[in-house]
């Protein structure tokens, strides 16, 4: 089975520019997660979807971050405008159902200059 696919792998942008990350979860996985990981830290949850519904977005900075999961499959995470502090790795994960283990993509490493 194909794993979770994320793109791009790396992204370098100037501050105040917009940026978008894309995630294709494992086929049949209903739950999709976006995590942010700073260097040397554990992943921090940004948003969790069950099918196309965002069931937990309490940690998403809604003034500049947005996400969508159309048709309950692929998902896009957007930052507009980006700030220097947004430099991090953005990880997407999916799971078969709510309480099952997560499968992670390799992440998008964002550098904001």
């Amino acid at each position, binding site marked *: 089975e194909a794993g979770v696919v994320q793109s791009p792998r790396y992204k370098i942008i100037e501050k105040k520019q917009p940026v978008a990350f894309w995630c294709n979860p494992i086929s049949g996985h209903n739950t999709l997660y976006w995590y942010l990981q700073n260097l040397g*830290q554990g992943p*921090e949850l940004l948003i969790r979807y069950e099918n196309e519904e965002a*069931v937990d977005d309490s940690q998403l900075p809604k003034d500049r971050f947005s996400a969508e999961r159309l048709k309950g499959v692929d998902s896009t995470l957007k930052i507009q405008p980006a700030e220097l502090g947004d430099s991090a790795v953005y990880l997407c*994960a999916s799971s078969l159902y709510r*309480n099952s283990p997560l499968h992670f993509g*390799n992440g998008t490493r964002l550098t904001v200059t």
Partner: protein
Amino acid sequence: SQQGEEDPQALSIQEGENATMNCSYKTSINNLQWYRQNSGRGLVHLILIRSNEREKHSGRLRVTLDTSKKSSSLLITASRAADTASYFCATDAAENQGGKLIFGQGTELSVKP
């Protein structure tokens, strides 16, 4: 915010030795999971232990859970150089009806050949 705290932050051992990592958490949980992350890659699920379980084995991995102390440990026996990675515990808090995994800050394991 991160629920789990891991100890030690870094561990360096020789090939063939055992490695033990500890995780403490704060609230009641549905389950606790351990993940491994190689440099520049996404996290890989290792093992899940439910709140009513005390010990679980998977190959060279042994996980224990003490809900009275709100702690867990991961033991890797007969370590190999390929075990070099960061290891994270993640808790599925009972208050969230499941599915919201909160990760600790990780233990960086280095296994020297």
